């Protein structure tokens, strides 16, 4: 497994303006560690999409990043409404976001597909009424 750097963040579900704070911090850390810019960007986009999802759908939660020499594992945990149909949610263009969210520039139904596109592994554990944990693994 090797040495691991663990970073943990509160994702504030009430504050749309601050969404992206955790991704930004992880991006900065990876950059400082000398991870390639292409990998840093994949991590930043995948995690940022996840963070936005937590804010617009699930009232926030916890974001945990474990950085290994060859990869990063990200856990995005919320206690939101859960995802009733994961296959449907994974479909590009499908979104349950409100008109208000769309007016902010999100809710195009690209969040989960984007997270899959930019990560090497993605796993969604979800239960309606309980919450969702999204696991992302990105190799450098």
């Amino acid at each position, binding site marked *: 497994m090797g040495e691991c750097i663990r970073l943990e963040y509160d994702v504030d579900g009430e504050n749309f303006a601050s*969404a992206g704070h955790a991704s930004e911090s992880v991006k900065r850390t990876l950059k400082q560690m000398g991870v390639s810019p292409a990998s840093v*960007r994949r991590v930043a986009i995948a995690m940022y*999409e996840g963070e936005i999802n937590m804010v617009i759908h699930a009232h926030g939660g916890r974001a945990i990043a474990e950085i290994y020499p060859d990869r990063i594992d990200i856990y995005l945990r919320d206690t939101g409404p859960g995802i009733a149909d994961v296959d449907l949610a994974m479909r*590009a263009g499908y979104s349950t976001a409100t008109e208000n969210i769309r007016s902010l520039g999100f*809710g*195009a139904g690209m969040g989960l*597909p984007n997270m899959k596109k930019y990560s090497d592994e993605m796993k969604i554990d979800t239960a309606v009424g309980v919450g969702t944990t999204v696991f992302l693994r990105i190799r450098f």
Partner: protein
Amino acid sequence: MTIREVVKLLDAEILCGEEHLDTEIHTACGSDMMSDVLAYVKDQSVLLTGLLNPQVVRTAEMMDMLCIVFVRGKRPEQPVIDLAESKGIVLLSTEKRLFVACGILYTNGLGG
């Protein structure tokens, strides 16, 4: 072209990042949908948009973009300008509409 040339071509006002105006840029994209910017953009360094919230700056930051142009004469609030300033991202504001602003930059050699 440089960001300085973008300023001139779009008759734009500089909101922050004056010290980065000589940075070279090669490509741009125009969108009001940040989800689509995150999904489809690749290595573009300028974002033209009519959207004003802080997530425009964060999206640009995640994509390693260098400059955001607000179209239709829009200006974001000060916290958004401060956020961009802290990230070293240039913010410009032009009276031109999105289609026109994109067209001017495209015909002057900026790629998509």
